[in-house]
């Protein structure tokens, strides 16, 4: 088995940025990497990273696909986990996880159905489901409340000295890696690269896109479970900030918005970057409002850098191609 490092891969800038900010966080506060801090850091980073993943897969499938309902869906699952299910007397982990995943799959099917079969533009379709989920959440949970079931301590606490939420990351990464072993990844990249080429080659383009939305929905639902474990309750507005960060994370991760390229490694780095920035700001006790400005500015800088790297690469390729 030969292992070759692809220095042209899309994720290097994101990983480099991640390392720099990671070191920056350690320098600013050496406690950052102390064992006691692992749990809060991973719990804090989880929604950034998982929602960015959730956003990445539809964006990879191209054709304008994106999922703006990621944040509100996480919020809806949060409300269901902490309010509705305990209210119905359902608190065992298996039923709750099954229900959370089912909500994710259902949302993915709905978004995917609207986008591929009804053929509503993805931005409109997912803004529509965004509003719908937000409304549903408010119906279930007009104000913050509810309680997380005790088993969620597995996620919010430590297991054998390792934060439980770490295993959530591992599970997702393994699932994605397994998915990459199947034909799906190539089909996804093909549909994202040029849907006409994919369609004429015989790929089932509709189901490739629907599955991308299902993956997105499931990941958003997992975020909802993590929210519940983290705050131990439900908050109807908890998901909304992550619509922006999920898209920013994708851009920072080097995943192309035109589709057909990218993966979860870059996206994870992109999402983590946003968390590290927030962490630095809160260490410096900067007002929360400036974090927004920083997010926006960093996103613009990342876009500029990506675009320059891209253009240099393309010019080199074009010059060689006489």
């Amino acid at each position, binding site marked *: 088995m030969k292992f070759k490092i692809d220095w042209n891969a899309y994720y290097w800038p994101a990983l480099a940025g991640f390392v720099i900010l990671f070191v920056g966080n350690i320098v600013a506060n050496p406690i950052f990497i102390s064992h006691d801090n692992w749990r809060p850091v991973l719990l804090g980073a989880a929604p950034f990273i998982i929602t960015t993943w959730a956003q990445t897969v539809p964006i990879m499938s191209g054709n304008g696909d994106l999922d703006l309902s990621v944040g509100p869906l996480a919020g809806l699952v949060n409300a269901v986990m902490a309010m509705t299910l305990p209210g119905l007397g359902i608190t065992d982990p298996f039923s709750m996880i099954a229900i959370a995943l089912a909500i994710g799959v259902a949302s993915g099917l709905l978004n995917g159905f609207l986008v591929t079969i009804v053929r509503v533009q993805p931005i409109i379709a997912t*803004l529509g489901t965004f509003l*719908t989920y937000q409304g549903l959440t408010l119906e279930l949970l007009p104000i913050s409340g509810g309680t997380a079931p005790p088993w969620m301590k597995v996620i919010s606490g430590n297991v054998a000295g390792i934060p439980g939420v770490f295993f959530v990351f591992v599970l997702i990464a393994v699932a994605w890696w397994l998915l990459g072993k199947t034909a799906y990844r190539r089909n996804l990249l093909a549909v994202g690269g040029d849907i006409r080429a994919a369609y004429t080659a015989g790929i089932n383009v509709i189901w490739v896109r629907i599955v991308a939305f299902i993956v997105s929905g499931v990941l958003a639902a997992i975020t909802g479970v993590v929210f519940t474990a983290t705050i131990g309750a439900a908050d109807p507005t908890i998901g909304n900030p992550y619509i922006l960060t999920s898209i920013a994370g994708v851009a920072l991760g080097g995943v192309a918005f035109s589709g057909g390229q990218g993966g979860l490694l870059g996206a994870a780095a992109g999402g983590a970057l946003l968390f590290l920035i927030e962490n630095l700001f809160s260490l410096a006790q900067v007002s929360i*409002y*400036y974090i927004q400005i920083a997010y926006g*500015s960093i*996103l613009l800088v990342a876009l500029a850098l990506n675009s320059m790297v891209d253009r240099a690469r393309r010019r080199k390729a074009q010059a060689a191609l006489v």
Partner: protein
Amino acid sequence: MNWVRHRLDVIAPFGIAIALFFITAAVIPGYGSMVSIRSLLLLSSLLGIASAGQTLTIIMGGIDLSVPAVIGLACVGFAVAFGQGVSPWVIGPIVIVAGIIIGAINGLISRALRVNSLIVTLATATIIYGAIWAQTKGDNRGSVPDFVTDFVSVIGWTGPIPVPGAVILWAFLVLVFVILERRSVLGRWVYASGANPGAAELAHIPSLLLWTVVFAISGGLSALAGILLAGFSSAANPQVGDAYLFTTLSAVVIGGTPIIGGRGGYARTVAGCFIITELTMLLIGLGLDEAAQQVSLGVLIIVLVAIYGRETHVRMQI
């Protein structure tokens, strides 16, 4: 009959707008009254002014997600400054110029870097929101001059005409935009650029300038909408524009301008604005709470787009 099927995308929005009016009038007592017709016109005109720039950017192949943020900025900037005693004739133009500059930056960055304007405008929107909060620290005391309030008052008059000034302004804007789209160099460039961005450069269309100008128009009109909304709500509210993200996009798409660009026009968005406003009034009139309104609006808009705003099947693209 064939003609109808052929032009369904044009007829349907206006047909639905008219049908919705009568349906709502039948369902909700008093909806046909002069007051509610005037508020329909007023609310539509506010949405219409906010969607005008959005229509142009979408036809050009872009999208402007910074509309709500610029509205919020203009609303807060105008009301807070006036509350502190600055003349509206000074702060008004300043706010609009600020909107134009933000828009120009949006267009410039999107085009110069060749990145999706969706991300660029999302980034600038975030910066603007952060800046508003950082500046005001949540303290949004402000006030609005009476003439602005009257300009967007449901019972306002414009000279002898029984509608507020905002409606007349909107009618004027529609006229300008229709001429701009059909009879101006800029308009033709906008359509060409949206229809085939690869060919636009080779056809000597100055894309960078075009994108800068069109996004500047969108920014300026969003700022104008923000001032009007300050008058409408009589307060400095940075969140006043939030609803306008979904509604401006929906008005454009429901009107029949596809997101991919190169087709459509502002006249259609006018129909889209009426539909959205009518739907909102219908839902409120039915006594739905805010949560239920959100759910219903989301569902209804998707249903409407599904009826005639569908994208083409991949087989038609080969």
